[in-house]
């Protein structure tokens, strides 16, 4: 073999290696995708699509069995919204503090703390919630049980915060120093510079942080399951103080006991598919926000 053909061979070999890797990933993805939707299809052979989408009761054991999506969706929505409302502003403010206001030492310590708290396993947080949060929520609001959407929200907010803080902090720190100097040179103070130049320049990174935080909240299973009581009912106006059951918790709780091939079994895959669609939706929104921002910059 000449030197030349050896090099060609190596190049082709590497190329095919990457190709196989790429195709492999795609295949696995397609397989999961196909599996999820095939199982959902099976579900809709016996259960009306409309009844599933607008059903207000999730009662797998009852006769007839009821598989209404709404209570689960309401549970997920309540817990997620309840987590995001405090986590987003607190997260962004902390990120601003770390990257703009704190001295270098304080910033390093805070960044380390954020990294550490990102590493807390969700079971541990759920356990902490069960022991410390549930009884307090119960006594403060005088409820029969402290396992509520609010409890789940608080735990989720704590879980989403490190993501929101570190991703936003990255975005803020990577705003070019030249922009900051330009703003200062016009006689604006630090607050005006943060509010009118730095945050707008970092908005795409910050919205990515928020979306990632939401994604984390929607997809989180264990910690939420441990503190929300898991009652599949559509809550009323007292939504945050009632027990709820999220989509993910439902799958986790029921998958173990369900018999393969039953309607219930297919129903669980169907709500898995719903979760998949929601996640894709969130990512699309994130992309749209980014694109809209790009038009200005």
């Amino acid at each position, binding site marked *: 073999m000449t030197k030349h053909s050896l090099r060609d061979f190596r190049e082709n070999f590497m190329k095919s290696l990457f190709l196989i890797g790429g195709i492999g990933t795609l295949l696995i993805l397609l397989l999961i995708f196909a599996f999820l939707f095939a199982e959902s299809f099976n579900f809709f052979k016996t259960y009306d699509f409309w009844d599933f989408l607008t059903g207000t009761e999730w009662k797998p054991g009852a006769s007839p069995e009821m598989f209404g999506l709404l209570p689960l969706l309401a549970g997920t929505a309540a817990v997620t919204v309840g987590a995001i409302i405090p986590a987003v502003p607190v997260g962004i403010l902390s990120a601003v503090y770390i990257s703009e206001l704190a001295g270098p030492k304080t910033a390093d310590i805070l960044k380390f703390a954020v990294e550490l708290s990102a590493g807390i396993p969700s079971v541990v947080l759920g356990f902490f919630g069960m022991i410390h949060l549930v009884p307090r929520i119960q006594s403060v609001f005088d409820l029969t049980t402290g396992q509520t959407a609010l409890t789940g929200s608080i735990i989720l907010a704590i879980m989403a915060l490190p993501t929101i803080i570190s991703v936003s902090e990255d975005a803020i720190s990577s705003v*070019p120093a*030249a922009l900051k*100097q330009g703003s200062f*040179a*016009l006689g*604006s103070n630090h607050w005006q510079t943060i509010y009118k130049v730095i945050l707008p320049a970092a908005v795409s990174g910050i919205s990515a942080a928020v979306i990632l935080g939401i994604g984390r909240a929607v997809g989180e299973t264990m910690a939420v399951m441990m503190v929300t009581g898991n009652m599949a009912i559509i809550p009323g106006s007292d939504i945050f103080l009632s027990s709820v059951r999220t989509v993910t918790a439902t799958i986790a709780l029921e998958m173990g006991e369900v018999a393969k091939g039953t309607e219930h079994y297919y129903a669980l895959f169907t709500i898995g598919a719903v979760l998949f669609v929601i996640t894709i939706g969130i990512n699309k929104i994130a992309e749209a926000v980014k694109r809209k921002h790009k038009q200005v*910059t």
Partner: protein
Amino acid sequence: MNATESKNAFSYEDTLSFENAIGFENKYLYEQDPAFSPEMNRKKAIEVKDLNLWYGGNQALKKIYLDIPKNKIFSLIGPSGCGKSTFLRTMNRMNDMISNCRIEGKVCVDGENIYGKGIDVTGLRKRVGMVFQKANPFPMSIYENIAYGPKIHGVSKKEIPGIVEESLRCAALWDEVKDRLKEPALSLSGGQQQRLCIARTLAVKPEVILFDEPCSALDPISTGKIEELMAELKKDYTIVIVTHNMHQAARISDCAAFFLSGELIETGKTAQIFENPQDKRTEGYITGRFG
């Protein structure tokens, strides 16, 4: 206004005693040149007295005495690392943002020491604007870029469109952008972006504008436009420019100062500095770079 004017009225005796104090270390040409008569001295935009600056343990500016006349273009020249940018930044206190930077001495803008007690730094930066080496428009529309300064200084909403147009006209950019004010500033060419940054500075109505190598990233045509613009601007503003381009310094500036490793070696009328430098080091630099 009257208060600042009277403060600005330094007597000729002041100047003499101050020159005695520094022992003619810097060869002043003011007495020999009619352009720098005592009347001229009353029209000082900026006075620097015994200015020393350190970055940590490293002294970047040493005993600088310098007067910058009003309504002139003043160029700062010297080899890389001699402290030109550092000196420029002392005049609008942009060095405040560098954590290990320590400053001693006086810089008076309109007679008032900007390193004195109770100085409003944001107010100072409104009076002493700055244009940077690399154009740094904000990631907003062209219009918003210009409106930013007036807005933060509390100019009323009604006046802003007028200020935007006036500033863009002044920066010779209006005709090129008047139909696309809502478009992102980053869609402009490099030269247009630099003129936008000049317009943005003009919009806050400063007295002095500091330019740090404003043309180093531009082509000859854009550079020409900015030079014309400066010549126009000096009617209303005092301009201080750092430049590595000796031809540019010779072409556009009225006065020049030569720096070398943190020291001010020589200052005077541009023609004087370039044609008949008093210091060997100035001559060496000029002939090396120019001839």
